[in-house]
């Protein structure tokens, strides 16, 4: 019971963090048709800027200041980079974002060095929120959950209920028509790119103290975010939300499960041979393969439903 509840909580916290990253990525893809490889780089940059600002002015200043800074940088990348190479096609854009990703990683290593930074949880939130049986739930995780839920509500409100959201949604599918109506579509793209980058940076600022702030952090989370976006359906915000939660929960629950593949098959009434072909596979527990489960899910989704759970177009 205790394990179940805490696994669920941890899974939701992790899933919401993934959502903060993937929401920006999926919006950018929806608009430009380009997977932004630099997205995880903006996440890392957010964590490092947050760390540096926190060192001078405190955690809260970092939380407020780092995302807009990274957002501006993102907008700059779109305005000066992506827009220029746009006419050379998607491959050029893809390579540009890839280049920016490499650049960010190198710059971070040059500016902050290779060792992990001791980015710590602010003292105000450094206590345990509640204790259930034997485990405690840290207040900071509740704070993470609160922020990411807030972002989720805010994004949906903006996109579904405001005029700006209407224009963004229209630009996603009918950029030509929107431009005809007198809206500056390139500027919409730039703003969305900037906001997406700022969201990634915000995720970095709040995840940095918990998941560690080090030059490899972009790589570790980067690949999983792509999985989320593809499973959810490229360009679909709802899809990204559902896929983030599903992957977050699957990953935490898989760790908690000690069933092996053999015992699962045994439960289905099948017996497995102790020797011979594949016999080494059966004693492997679900917990040990937890990290590759999202990728298995990715393959499964691509086979069964290539558009992703909520997507409308072929990836």
């Amino acid at each position, binding site marked *: 019971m205790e394990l179940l509840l805490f*696994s669920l909580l941890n899974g939701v916290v992790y899933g919401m963090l993934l959502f903060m990253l993937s929401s920006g990525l999926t919006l950018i893809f929806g608009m430009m048709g380009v997977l932004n490889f630099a997205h995880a780089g903006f996440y890392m940059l957010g964590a490092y800027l947050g760390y540096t600002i926190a060192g001078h002015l405190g955690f809260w200043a970092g939380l407020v200041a780092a995302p807009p800074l990274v957002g501006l940088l993102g907008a700059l990348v779109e305005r000066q980079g992506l827009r220029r190479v746009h006419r050379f096609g998607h491959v050029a854009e893809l390579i540009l974002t890839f280049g920016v990703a490499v650049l960010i990683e190198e710059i971070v290593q040059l500016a902050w060095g290779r060792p*992990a930074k001791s980015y710590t949880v602010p003292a105000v939130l450094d206590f345990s929120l509640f204790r259930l049986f034997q*485990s405690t739930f840290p207040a900071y995780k509740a704070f993470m959950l609160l922020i990411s839920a807030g972002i989720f509500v805010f994004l949906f409100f903006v996109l579904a209920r405001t005029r700006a959201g209407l224009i963004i949604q229209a630009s996603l599918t009918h950029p030509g028509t929107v431009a005809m109506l007198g809206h500056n579509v390139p500027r919409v793209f730039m703003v969305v790119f900037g906001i997406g980058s700022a969201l990634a940076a915000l995720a970095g600022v709040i995840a940095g103290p918990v998941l*560690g702030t*080090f030059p*490899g952090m972009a790589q*570790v989370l980067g690949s999983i975010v792509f999985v989320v976006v593809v499973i959810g359906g490229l360009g679909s915000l709802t899809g990204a939300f559902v896929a983030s939660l599903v992957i977050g929960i699957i990953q935490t629950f898989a760790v*908690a499960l000690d069933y092996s593949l053999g015992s699962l098959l045994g439960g289905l009434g099948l017996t497995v041979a102790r020797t011979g072909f594949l016999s080494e596979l059966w004693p492997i527990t679900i*917990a*040990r393969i937890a990290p590759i489960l999202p990728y298995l899910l990715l393959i499964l989704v691509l086979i069964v439903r290539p558009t992703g759970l909520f997507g409308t177009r072929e990836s």
Partner: protein
Amino acid sequence: MLSGRHVVIGMLALTMVAWLAPGAMAADPIRIAYVDPLSGPFAATGENGLNQFRYAAEAINKAGGVLGRPLEIVPYDNKVSPQESLIQLKKVTGDGIQFVFQGNSSGVAHAISDAVQKHNERNPGNRVLYLNYSAVDPALTNEKCHFWHFRFDAHADMKMAALTDVIRANPKIKKMYIIGQDYSFGKAVADAAVKMVGQKRPDIQIVGNELHPIGKVQDFSPYVQKIVASGADAVITGNWGADMINLAKAANDAGLKVPFYTYYAASDGVTAAIGAAGIDRIRLVHETHPGNPSAPKGLGDYVAGYRKLHPKNDVNQPRIHTGLNMLALAIKKAGTTDVDKVAAALEGMEYTNIGGDQILMRREDHQALMPVYISVHTNKAIVYDLDASGFGLAIENKVEREKVTQPAACKMQRPS
């Protein structure tokens, strides 16, 4: 205007100067390759190791070097990947370097050890010596031993023998949880723990034996939750680098209060991450005196000197000093850098390390024999702290060399 011919002559002259200069200025250095992670999740560990090698080499060079030549440490980034390590090893041999130090990850160590053995058998005129300062999978000096591999750290079974001696004396422990990284070293620790705890304390129940992917887990909360759910009252882990930092953080967050018996829960960011939550709870098995509460003669100055150069880092691997100095002595004794002769000189060598311990490089399997220490994470009476955090390790037990020594199972083939 310069004509094309002038430019060519000028360049030729420059080349001549560049070619002559090093010979005129200093003796040709003895180059030593350092193949370890300098990027990725374990970069912090690798970089601090490199700095310790340079620091140790500096001291040797100040004392006149080896055979009148200075030592030069040449770094190669292997990203803790066995495949990448083999590419780097090719570079090392291509650069004409004969001595290779590597320590992080036994998975990498197996790959390098294997490659070095094959390379040496095929290229008798261009051999390399593999000096392993930290990879502690026992197999490296047992089933997989060969003439060109030497290990300067106590291996996993030696350390587990010491740890389980301490665990035996603690009647409060009834349920043990083992968690480690999913590769040869993590498995070796788990196997040794199951075997030795079973022998010394058959009443202790192993309530969990978990392997997680190395360097891939960012949030250890689900694993910690599982430890809590198992009702364990003690944990054994061989985790290192980012995996140890994140495990410690998650344990702190979940309020897990049981004692941890670890191999590497100190320094390179780990001590700072554990902080006050780990006082008198986190224990570490390691070689060489931790320096607290009172450091052996010589160790204190060495540690303080390093801290002056690297204010945030520590001498957390004194075996780097041991390994480099034993290599230097072996080259001196052999009078040459010929790999086979240096290896022969290392066999059976006795050395008093920076902490005053007697180290013997066992001839049979090239495993260094040494006493092992059990220390506790604390902030009381700490003279030499770690991570500049105010916290450090204080000695609790010293397990003598004879008690730690494991039988040698190596059938060494020596070049004839």
